[in-house]
């Protein structure tokens, strides 16, 4: 839980690590949308939170006034000296134009539908194996026994890392995206094992090149030159971190929804053709990911006195509940036809792994409801949610019904 003091008013002192926000942010965002479309906090060195679809879209598409050099808010307020521009620490997510496009084009082919669809049988057999392991159990943990194991197995295979290091990957993810309120010195110290691990993997791939993303990044050339090692390293970190608890959270939140919504569960079981539309509504309603930007210069923007290096938290999940854009925005409608949700962001930084995430989510839900057509939450109060910019259930006890 957060070590920060409790929040008095989210309009002037918001904190996405606050327990109230972590447990149920939606009423907070609804209140902010009505009261002040852009909330402010002095925490984390100063940060803004646009709560409307309009505000989120405007900033996401404004790469002049906002930079992506840092995308995870933490206590180490960047002053411009410590973050390499224009690449950033984890290209392309931390890159700005024009370099951004170069870095993005390098990884998009591997994440396009062709190669991702080819992974589907492997994801399906992984899900079946996990379900086999929990067979005969009356209570299963949708988070710890199921959702959390699916993305690491896929990502480690793509990068060519040993699958048995799954637990280690989750600890890296926790450090980067959950342990956000630690003092900055502590974050740097705890990050060292991540760097050490990646160095070992890079060395191993140099000695034994193979058909995976790590070897590809070490080998690929841009304008006749191999990538800087910082670039290779940063993209590997990005794929590992961004590919794991995002999808894990989406799978968990979807199971959580189905466990407490028997009518929706029954429809999905009985109408498999509904799945593509239902998946998008699950993504809209429980979008797990918020991303940060940094303000590029002192300016008045959307009526707010923004300062250079203030953080912006882009609440894509909040935009997805904006009643100005979505009819009955606060209602989950499993067959919602109009659904321009922003679960994968908007503009040039659209989640590069969205095809993979969507496929994993769909297959994980298909296999779970095939094995267990009826289930419910065992104890709603026992469900815990991950703090920070990636939100999803961690402890998710589910009772299997006959």
């Amino acid at each position, binding site marked *: 839980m957060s070590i920060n003091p409790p929040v008095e008013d989210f309009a002037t002192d918001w904190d996405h690590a606050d327990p109230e926000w972590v447990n149920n942010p939606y009423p907070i965002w609804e209140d902010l949308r009505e009261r002040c479309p852009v909330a402010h906090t002095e925490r984390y060195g100063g940060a803004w939170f646009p709560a409307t679809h309009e505000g989120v879209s405007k900033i996401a598409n404004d790469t002049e006034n906002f930079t992506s050099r840092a995308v995870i808010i933490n206590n180490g307020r960047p002053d411009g000296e410590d973050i390499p521009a224009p690449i950033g620490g984890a290209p392309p997510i931390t890159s700005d134009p024009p370099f951004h496009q170069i870095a993005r084009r390098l990884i998009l082919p591997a*994440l*396009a*539908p062709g190669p991702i669809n080819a992974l589907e049988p492997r994801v399906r057999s992984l899900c079946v194996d996990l379900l086999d392991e929990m067979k005969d159990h009356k209570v299963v943990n949708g988070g710890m026994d199921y959702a959390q194991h699916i993305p690491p197995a896929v990502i480690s295979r793509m990068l060519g890392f040993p699958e048995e290091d799954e637990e280690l990957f989750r600890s890296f993810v926790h450090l980067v995206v959950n342990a956000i309120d630690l003092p900055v010195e502590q974050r740097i110290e705890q990050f060292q094992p991540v760097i050490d691990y990646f160095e070992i993997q890079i060395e191993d791939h140099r000695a034994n090149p193979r058909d995976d993303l790590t070897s590809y990044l070490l080998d690929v050339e841009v304008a006749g030159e191999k990538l800087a090692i910082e670039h290779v390293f940063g993209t590997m970190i990005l794929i590992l971190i961004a590919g794991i608890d995002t999808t894990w959270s989406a799978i968990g939140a979807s199971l959580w929804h189905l466990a407490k919504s028997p009518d929706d569960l029954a429809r999905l079981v009985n109408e498999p053709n509904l799945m593509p539309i239902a998946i998008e509504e699950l993504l809209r309603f429980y979008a797990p990911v918020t991303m940060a930007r940094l303000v590029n210069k002192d300016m008045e923007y959307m009526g707010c006195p923004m300062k250079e290096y203030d953080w912006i938290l882009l609440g894509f999940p909040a935009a997805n509940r904006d009643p100005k854009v979505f009819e009955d925005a606060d209602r989950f409608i499993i067959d919602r036809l109009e659904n321009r*949700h922003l679960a994968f962001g*908007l503009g040039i930084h659209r989640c590069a792994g969205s095809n993979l995430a969507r496929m994993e989510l769909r297959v994980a839900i298909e296999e779970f409801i095939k094995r267990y057509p009826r289930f419910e939450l065992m104890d709603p109060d026992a469900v815990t949610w991950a703090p920070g910019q990636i939100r999803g259930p961690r402890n998710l006890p589910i009772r299997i019904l006959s």
Partner: protein
Amino acid sequence: MKVVIDTELCQGHGRCFTMAPNLFSFDDLGSGVVIGDGTLNDETIELARLAQLNCPEHAISIEE
């Protein structure tokens, strides 16, 4: 009537080819591509509208 993707606006969310795989495909970078010349008939117009209503970048249009 024809369905068209504005390639300047498309960011590869993949909503069109997920929702309407008979009308849309994708290129090597994962951007949406209209299959054939995009001419719509009474059966495919609804699918094209569905894709249009799901594109977060408003990149899909239906031309008379």
